């Protein structure tokens, strides 16, 4: 079990390193294609020749790429002294870089954005699992009923609607729609949980809905299919043969067997969820990681891009690790095999 765990952690770290290497490589490629000065990706368009030279010198653009990469990565552990040719900055460990465009350490910006994204994703995940699994189970149990048909139809449409379209519809209806639906006449604006829990919750509901709708539909379909399969298993027949009431047969014996595949899927979907977060945060103008990343990428602020992608990859592999461990807990056969 310990060996298994260590192996998984090593694998996860490898993925994070690969992600950081690829991100780094993409932006090494860029100046070669565009002919722009590399310094541009650190200090922006208005960089003077002298300043660019200073940045190049400080970051060692003339040095071999592996060395540059190593300098960046070791900064995470040791901290770095950085300069844009005008001001000198000390970036203490763990240093994910410093945005000279915004004059802030990247880690600070990520730290600020993280709670927004965490609240968004966790809330959405709770909603989607709750509604998705419940609808799927009910559909399977009442197979062919009106509820089943309705839920199946809604789920099919749900998986076909992009979250940003749902988002625009919601924003339109809730802020500019018919008067009885205009619940957010002043717009949907993010409020930190610590300042105003009720306001936070109210602001979160629409983006939660956007994110959850797509996934809930997906999970309802999956749960229904898995549950139908499970209900035809021999051990469910055994449960009936014991004289258990339907509630126990479905709720205990059936549902228990549906959980492992759902958990696996959650692990696979964390990456997709992060993509959804970029879209939803951008659309709703919520100051989370997704919007931070999006803005950094479109303004080509390399230190922020590097920082956010690494943190993003870290989040995904952590989620995968948790899912893996949870799977071990849920499936005794896997637990013993390890």
């Amino acid at each position, binding site marked *: 079990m310990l060996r298994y765990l260590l192996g998984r952690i090593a694998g996860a770290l490898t993925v994070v390193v690969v992600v950081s290497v690829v991100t780094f490589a993409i932006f090494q490629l860029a100046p070669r294609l565009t002919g722009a000065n590399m310094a541009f990706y650190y200090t922006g368009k208005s960089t003077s020749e002298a300043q660019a030279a200073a940045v190049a010198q400080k970051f060692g653009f003339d040095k071999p790429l592996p060395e540059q990469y190593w300098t960046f990565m070791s900064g995470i552990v040791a901290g770095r002294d950085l300069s844009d040719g005008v001001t000198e900055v000390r970036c203490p460990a763990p240093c994910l870089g410093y945005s000279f465009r915004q004059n802030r350490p990247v880690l600070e910006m990520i730290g600020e954005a993280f709670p927004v994204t965490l609240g968004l994703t966790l809330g959405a995940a709770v909603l989607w699992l709750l509604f998705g699994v419940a609808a799927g189970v009910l559909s399977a149990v009442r197979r062919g009923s009106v509820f089943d048909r309705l839920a199946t139809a809604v789920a099919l449409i749900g998986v076909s609607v992009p979250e940003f379209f749902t988002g625009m519809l919601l924003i339109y209806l809730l802020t500019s729609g018919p008067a009885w639906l205009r619940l957010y006449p002043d717009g949907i604006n993010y409020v930190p949980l610590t300042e105003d829990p009720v306001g936070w919750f109210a602001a979160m509901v629409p983006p939660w809905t956007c994110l959850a709708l797509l996934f809930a539909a997906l999970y309802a379909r999956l749960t229904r299919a898995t549950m139908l399969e499970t209900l035809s*298993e*021999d*051990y469910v*027949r*055994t*449960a*009936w*043969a*014991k*004289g*258990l*009431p339907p509630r*126990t047969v479905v709720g205990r*014996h059936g549902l*228990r*067997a549906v959980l492992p595949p759902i958990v696996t899927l959650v692990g696979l979907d964390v990456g997709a969820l992060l993509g959804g977060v970029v879209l939803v945060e951008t659309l709703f103008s919520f100051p989370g990681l997704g919007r931070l990343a999006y803005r950094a990428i479109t303004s080509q602020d390399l230190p922020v891009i590097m920082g956010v992608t690494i943190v993003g990859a870290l989040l995904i592999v952590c989620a995968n690790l948790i899912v893996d461990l949870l799977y071990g807990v*849920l*499936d*005794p*056969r896997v637990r*013993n095999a390890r």
Partner: protein
Amino acid sequence: MPVETTPPADPLLSVRDLRVQFPTDDGLVRAVDGLSFDVAPGEIVGVVGESGSGKSVTGQAILGLLRRTRARVTGEIRFDGRDLVTAPEAELRRLRGAELAMVFQDPLSALHPYYTVGSQVSEAYRVHNRVSKRAARERAVQMLDRVGIPEPHRRYGAYPHEFSGGMRQRVMIAMALVCTPRLLIADEPTTALDVTVQAQILELLGDLRDEFGSAVLLVTHDLGVVAETCDSVVVMYAGQCVEQAGVEDLFARPQAPYTWGLLGSMPRVDRDRRDRLAPIGGQPPSLLAIPPGCAFEPRCGYHEEVPESRCVDERPALVHDGQGRAVRCHLTAGQRLTLRPVAP
């Protein structure tokens, strides 16, 4: 004359004209087609037939497990005087596990992979008995011990995949007998097991019958299993009973050509090895289109003995001899005596 081994008593289970039909896209599948037999208290009755003969479906119909499927079950299944075909689901649920229990063919798939064997056994006990978790646990440990699970206290918390096939089937039996049911339906309980383990499981079933007094309906395709365990036998073919007899009678004086075939295809150590086994040629009929005459006729080597091609045109009736034997065949009693392959 054979000596009646079981005194005539009110049967515990009495199946009359049972029919199970599955509507499918291709037509109506007649899985069981007018089956009747009795099981006396404490008796072990074997139901024998090839796969698709309707023997497993019969067991499931008795427990009402076909109610959640598209199957149509008609006829009468009287258990202790109550008709299980028409009984409300709530009443059946009270009987299932408590008075009627079932052991399935493959214990690995029949046990829930994510729950410990102990919790599965004690759950079966707690559904029908208002007892504390601890008492149920004790009862389960006791049952596991009784069916021969070593170190039952420790193994209570183990999962099905940690057991061998034979041990798993013992767990299934413990789970089925935990409420001391009056009828145990064992559906091919030894088919998925090694030969050495098979004998142990069969012995266990016999012992438990003696101890708990439960009647057993043993569904199997294996006449060897029947010979070892059963008091009487129902031979099924294409959803119908073709022969019914006490076990010694059946092996000593089989009456139906299909039974002859079954016996002929059974390997025996006391027979010369150079005697070839004689498998029954051909396939059982499609249950979508059972021939109008004798269902076994296309595979039967004796239909020319019956005049006017009656075997093709007319379905033989199940004829009882009034002494617990019944046979479904157009051959006359005399013909059956002379045509029967020489008993080894």
